[in-house]
């Protein structure tokens, strides 16, 4: 049940082509993103200080990141004082190893998991499976993905590419092998599907000894972790097991408790389009007599410090994983999340993946900053004001720079040529005449075939504007 991975995905244009041909997928995505866009707009419109909240949220995160070392040390100190054990992990393998070690120490062969992007990012389920430990996903969408041996395609709703009929079929086919089978008379009514998940997972919650979570926020000054959720599966995992391991990216730090309020306002409205999500849990280490009495926190780097060192790109670490940028992205709406080849798809994924992994190494990663028309809809909705278009443009420059020095590609040669042509109007005028005007420019850049597959090229005018201006003295003669 852990066979699907993103490794070896084709570059974005190729992956997108396959997705675009799937009309069911496009219908599912258009329906789901259309629904959530409307809901978000309504609840954001209710607040007259929305823009101030965005600015404040961005400011709090920026300040937290600028002084991250101090905050991480405070967080570690407060967590430890509150009875938690803090671990540090440079990369995915180290982080997964900590969780496996805790599970082994308690001699369990299964853990229950709250939905967590960080644990998917580090490949935790695969790492635990290699040790004979089953990691049960308990978020409904993660369950759908796990049972379907599928890949996540959205940050908030990893199974957004599945409609109700497909979900029903997955439950009917796969639940039995993982535990309690789906009810015999299961229909595709969403409330029945939700109930099937309730019944299937209840036995797992009741018997689990070890729970695994991420955290939406980690408040440094109080050592408080925060999980924002809807279904109550998070509360189950955070409360019922004897042992809790939370895998937390180092960028999740919020310096003070008071500053948490901004995020509890912007996240639910941006994410599920609600004034508040059904459940938010906060806890600081161990509470005697209530919940897990053994608490571990794994602070994970895994590329975050690489992103942090990027002066333009570090703003991506403000991200609170709301997925508003996915829901408004016209590219995402048509290609879906799998085309991005990562647990982080959409506009934020197009910048976060290259920032975490570095450019110039992997063709798939290098293709992501180009997976955008730079329309700016993502920036407009981002609750922490990440200027995604500007970061995309900066990353494109990094991709190009990483490939300088070798034999120039056709594109690089064309851009060099264009650069020289645009150095002076004399050269441009000459080029306009030499290339027969008009479409010649596109042809010279080698773009005509890709353009013309579905679009007519405009017909060339007999005379350029500058030739007309010169001939008529600006229309005066």
């Amino acid at each position: 049940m852990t066979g699907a991975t993103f490794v070896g995905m084709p570059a974005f244009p190729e992956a997108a082509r396959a997705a675009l041909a799937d009309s069911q997928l496009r219908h599912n995505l258009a329906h789901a993103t259309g629904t959530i866009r409307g809901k978000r707009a309504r609840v954001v419109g209710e607040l007259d200080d929305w823009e101030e909240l965005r600015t404040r949220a961005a400011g709090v995160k920026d300040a937290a990141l600028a002084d991250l070392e101090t905050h991480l040390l405070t967080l570690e100190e407060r967590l430890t004082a509150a009875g938690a054990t803090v671990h540090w992990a440079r990369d995915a393998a180290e982080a997964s190893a900590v969780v496996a070690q805790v599970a082994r120490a308690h001699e369990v062969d299964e853990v229950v998991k709250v939905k967590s992007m960080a644990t998917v990012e580090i490949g935790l389920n695969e790492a635990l499976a290699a040790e004979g430990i089953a990691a049960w996903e308990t978020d409904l969408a993660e369950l759908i993905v796990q049972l379907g041996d599928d890949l996540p395609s959205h940050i908030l709703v990893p199974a957004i590419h599945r409609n109700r009929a497909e979900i029903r079929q997955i439950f009917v086919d796969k639940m039995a092998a993982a535990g309690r089978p789906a009810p015999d008379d299961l229909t595709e009514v969403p409330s029945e599907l939700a109930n099937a998940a309730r019944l299937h997972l209840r036995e797992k919650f009741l018997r689990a000894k070890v729970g695994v979570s991420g955290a939406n926020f980690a408040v440094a000054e109080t050592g408080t972790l925060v999980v924002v959720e809807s279904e109550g599966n998070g509360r189950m995992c955070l409360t019922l097991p004897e042992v809790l391991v939370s895998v937390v990216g180092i960028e999740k730090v919020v310096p003070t408790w008071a500053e948490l309020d901004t995020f509890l306002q912007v996240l639910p409205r941006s994410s599920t389009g609600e004034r508040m999500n059904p459940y938010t849990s906060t806890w600081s280490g161990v509470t005697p007599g209530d919940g897990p009495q053994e608490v571990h926190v794994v602070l994970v780097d895994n590329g975050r410090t690489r992103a942090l060192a990027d002066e333009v790109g570090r703003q991506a670490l403000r991200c609170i994983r709301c997925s508003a940028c996915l829901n408004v992205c016209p590219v995402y709406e048509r290609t879906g999340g799998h085309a991005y080849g990562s647990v982080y798809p959409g506009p934020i994924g197009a910048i976060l993946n290259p920032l975490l992994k570095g450019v110039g190494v992997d063709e798939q990663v290098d293709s992501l900053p180009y997976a955008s028309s730079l329309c700016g809809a993502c920036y407009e909705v981002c609750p922490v004001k990440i200027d995604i278009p500007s970061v995309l443009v900066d990353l494109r420059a990094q991709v190009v720079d990483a490939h300088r020095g070798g034999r120039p590609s056709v594109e690089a040669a064309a851009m060099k040529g264009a650069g020289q042509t645009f150095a002076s109007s004399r050269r441009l005028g000459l080029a306009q005449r030499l290339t027969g005007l008009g479409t010649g420019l596109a042809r010279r850049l080698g773009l005509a075939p890709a353009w013309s597959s579905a679009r007519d090229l405009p017909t060339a005018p007999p005379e350029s504007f500058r030739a007309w201006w010169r001939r008529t003295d600006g229309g005066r003669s």
Partner: protein
Amino acid sequence: MRVALMVTCLGDTLFPEVGKAVVRLLSRLGVEVDFPEGQTCCGQPMVNSGYLDEAVPAVRAFAAAFEGYDAVVAPSGSCAGCARHQHGLVARRADDPALAEAVATLGSRTYELSEFLVDVLGVTDVGASFPHSVTYHPTCHSLRMLGVGDRPLSLLREVRGIDLRELPGEAECCGFGGTFAVKNADTSVAMGADKARHVRETGAEVLVAGDSSCLMHIGGLLRRQRGGVRTMHLAEVLAATEGASPGASPEPDRLPA
């Protein structure tokens, strides 16, 4: 006030009627506009593809050509946006403080056409007449990079005889996106096809926008689909007057008959 036309490389090379329309329109409003012949391209095709070094010559040419003008008017939200928000990036890349200062000054004086008309000249009724049904697509860079808001629509609403029709999903990108249109041609076309469908749904004769690049993309799809909808730049509609409709132009595929 010395006013310069930034015709854009695309307008210069492929859509000269748009530049001519701006000249006619501004002259009718009493503004004499210059065309500094040293201008080439804003550099955006290079910048947005990641070729910052390659954009430096274009930005130098821009700074030299428009130096000293009080206002630079571009019939393009995208190119005006590049001048205002991206030239600084290129100047920093060139490590040229003088260029950085020059483009900062020029950037603050560069206007997209509707901004210039509404904010600088203070007009919304430009005396145009265009008795056709029209739907308007707000281009992404005019809307979100420059924040032109409803300036273009406020200008169009004053045009005599116009039948202005609301475009469903108007604020969604058409899918052009510069080199995105060819690097991710399939996605670009999928986005454009939806835009073209919305345009046809309005039943309008003419699709109007403030960027020739987006119009080239949507128009290319519409023509391939034989949708019967023509594309026109905002400047061309605003330049049209009674008895002097641009329909007389010899380019029937880009203009209403």
